[in-house]
């Protein structure tokens, strides 16, 4: 962004082990989204290092970044970000398409992940025909489809009511139980409590980094 660059993060040093479920918390402006974007290779760091699964992430051009995102990362956004003219299944199959997976295999995999999030029978529906919670579950299925190393969720429950939020968190916990590494940016304490580790950010530095006892979302569903 050139001359008007802003130092949002001022020295973040932390590592995430495989299979962790980490909540990144902080008030707006604390740098949590920037951190997630850097982790997601959507933003660049100007100082420091970032290693993902032993691969140093640096000097990325757009093509390389796209390739890494596709292979290593799954994104879940607050506003779902489904492609509205594609059916649920096509949305889920999209990352596989970029991996040049064959059409048939793509559909099978997409259906498998849709089944995992409990939306198999909605496979042919357009996003506009789904509820908010369903959309987010399709988005999660899409993030999982490419079998990424890390799942990055930016306020995944931000646009959902609390009951639906817990359903989504229940799904995320189950995925985590299956061994996936997940990072969630949130400002809701109850959502953060459903993770295994909470990192508090304030003004671009880590205020607190603690392991917590996970609250299972299933009891609220």
């Amino acid at each position, binding site marked *: 962004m050139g001359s008007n660059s802003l130092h949002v993060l001022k020295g973040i040093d932390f590592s995430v082990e495989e299979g962790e479920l980490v909540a990144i918390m902080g008030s707006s402006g604390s740098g949590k989204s920037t951190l997630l974007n850097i982790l*997601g290779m959507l933003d660049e760091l100007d100082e420091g290092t970032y290693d993902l699964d032993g691969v140093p992430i640096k000097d990325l051009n*757009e093509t390389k970044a796209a390739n890494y995102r596709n292979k290593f990362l799954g994104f879940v956004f607050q506003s779902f970000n489904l492609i509205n003219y594609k059916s649920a299944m096509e949305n889920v199959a999209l990352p596989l398409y970029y991996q040049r997976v064959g059409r048939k295999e793509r559909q099978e995999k997409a259906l498998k992940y849709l089944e995992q999030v409990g939306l198999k029978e909605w496979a042919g529906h357009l996003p506009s025909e789904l509820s908010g919670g369903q959309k987010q579950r399709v988005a999660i299925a899409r993030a999982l489809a490419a079998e990424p190393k890390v799942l990055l969720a930016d306020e995944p429950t931000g646009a959902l009511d609390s009951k639906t939020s817990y359903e989504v968190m229940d799904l995320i916990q189950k995925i985590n139980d299956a061994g996936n590494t997940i990072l969630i940016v949130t400002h809701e304490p109850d959502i953060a409590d459903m993770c295994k580790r909470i990192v508090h950010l304030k003004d671009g530095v880590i205020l607190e980094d603690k392991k917590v006892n996970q609250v299972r979302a299933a009891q609220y569903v």
Partner: protein
Amino acid sequence: MFNKDRWREIIQVLTANLFRTILTAFGVFWGILILIILLAAGKGLENGIRADFGDIATNTMFMWTQKVTKAYKGLPKDRVFDYKVGDVADIWENVDGLRFVSPRNQLGSFGGASNVVRGLKTGAFTIYGDYPEIIKQEPMDITSGRFLNQSDINEKRKVAVIGIDVRSSLYEKGEAFLGTYIKINNVNFMVIGTYKKSSANGDGENAQREIYVPFTSFSQAFNRGDSVGWMAITAVDDVPITDIKEQIFNIVKENHKIHPDDKRAVGHFDLNEQFQRVNSLFGALELIAYFVGILVLLSGVIGVSNIMLIVVKERTKEIGIRRALGESPWSIKKQILMESIFLTIISGMAGIVMGALVIYGANFVLEASGPVPMFTNPNVNLGVVTVALMILIISGLFAGFIPANSAIKVRPIDALRTE
């Protein structure tokens, strides 16, 4: 590149806002339609004019004598002279690339006094003393009997080939005419054939009122000695007569002691030059058709480019999502380019088909309503269609280029933030 999913996506995107797509496509459709129609109209005009030239050997010039305008070698100006038979031999000998050199003599003219008599019937016709080659320079159909031949020339036979209108003026309907005699200026000639000229120059009627007799017998019968009234000279196909005519002029000027700079003494009409002028006119017409057509097409292409920019703008967020999911910038660029090319080609094809229908309709009407002067069979050939398709692909590429670049110029993170 041409996999099913990409095509599905192209169709999905273009049909998402069908009305807008059709309006956009119309610009290109219209452009190519205009281009095709202009080219076809030009071709129709060309065909019409060419039909008027008929089968005449166009690489031909006619040469006659005029008054000498410069005194030279002791001879005064304002002198009149005649070509001689010897000039023909000299021209043959000294000029390369000639096909026919036909000396001609002429008697009488259209609307002149009666000069041909048969029994009680008389008529005024143009009589030509000619060599047999003339039929290749001024094509005519021999409808009965035969045309002049070399033996007629050698033996100075008094034979005549008459136009079909000469026949109908001098003979009753159904009357036998081959082998009968007609009197031309009181000299008997035997009719050996009739001809019909397919001329559309407006003198179609007069063209059938001529009589051809052997050059040698003409000279003898009408006391022309070795004079030659005028000549029709045709060059071989790849040597334009225009290029070698000066050589011919120089030979006859030398033979008749005419000042080399005398521009007026040798009169001529260069059919090739006229024909080339007409040809270049059609070249210019075609150029104008392409120019106008492509300009109209260009505005259509700009329309496509414009709409693609809007599509890209509308899809900024979607493109951001795709890139976050790992689609490479090149793949996105390709997608936009293909959408643009596809739209251009589809609408262009529709334009070509429509153009073909219009041409078909025009030909149908032309056929039904009979020949229209100077306009025959408008058409475009396959080459033009190929060129049009090439233009379409290239313009589609151009139309998509700016939008495709703008699609990947936005960083994915910014694209994701747009609403």
